[in-house]
């Protein structure tokens, strides 16, 4: 799924990286615990989260993730957006909750990641 499709499906707005709207992601992961993200996630995955602190961007950076969706209408502070721009990471913001946002993407064909043979 392309980033621009995710934006449309979630009625989201770009906070950073709109020039990368054509990037493709293969799966999604919804989580507010950064070490769980670090444990399970590969690149080409979009992270959906309600956290908006700099550590979310750092986590994405370590994993080479190229997109993050902030849910529940949360907007990160400017320094977080600046950091994402510097790291060339796409930031989207949606008013949907984590559950609904994940559900919308899943029902439109974007699968979860695989953990121990089970789709998560």
């Amino acid at each position: 799924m392309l980033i621009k499709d995710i934006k449309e499906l979630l009625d989201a707005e770009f906070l950073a990286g709109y020039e990368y709207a054509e990037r493709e992601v293969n799966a999604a992961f919804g989580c507010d615990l950064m070490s769980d993200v670090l444990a399970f996630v590969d690149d080409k995955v979009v992270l959906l989260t309600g956290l908006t602190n700099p550590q979310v961007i750092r986590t994405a950076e370590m994993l080479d993730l190229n997109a993050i969706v902030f849910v529940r209408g949360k907007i990160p502070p400017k320094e977080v957006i600046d950091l994402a721009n510097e790291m060339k990471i796409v930031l989207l913001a949606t008013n949907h909750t984590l559950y609904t946002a994940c559900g919308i993407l899943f029902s439109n064909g974007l699968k979860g990641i695989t953990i121990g043979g089970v789709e998560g």
Partner: protein
Amino acid sequence: MDSNKNNIGIKLEYEVKKDDFTRAGEASSNIKKVLRQLGIDSDVIRRTAIATYEAEINIVIHSEGGTITVYIKPDRIEMIAEDSGPGIEDVRLAMQEGFSTASNKIRELGFGAGMGLPNMKKYTDEFYIDSQKGGSTTVKMTIYI
């Protein structure tokens, strides 16, 4: 950062401050950049970045502050995270997935899954931890290139 080339390879050293959540991750970010400039394999870079990042965050959250030192050698990357206490009471327990003493405030920041030490072990080829309550904690990790 202190970087010099000699027979031990390249040495990178970073001071990590306690409770400094805005700068937490900068050391690992920098290490990642250096590895990329050296043209190291991307999977090795990712595993190194995750391991140093988890170690860096643990120093910020759980310790009085410390240092992260990385040696980049022709055949391997060695990482040493050392802090000045307060140490871990039961290292075996701390190594279990899901064990965490993180406060609610820390959990709100997205940490405290109890996955950091298990992640470091999982993503590195050699993992060694030494800690006593009241003393310092040292984590040594190696990834073969």
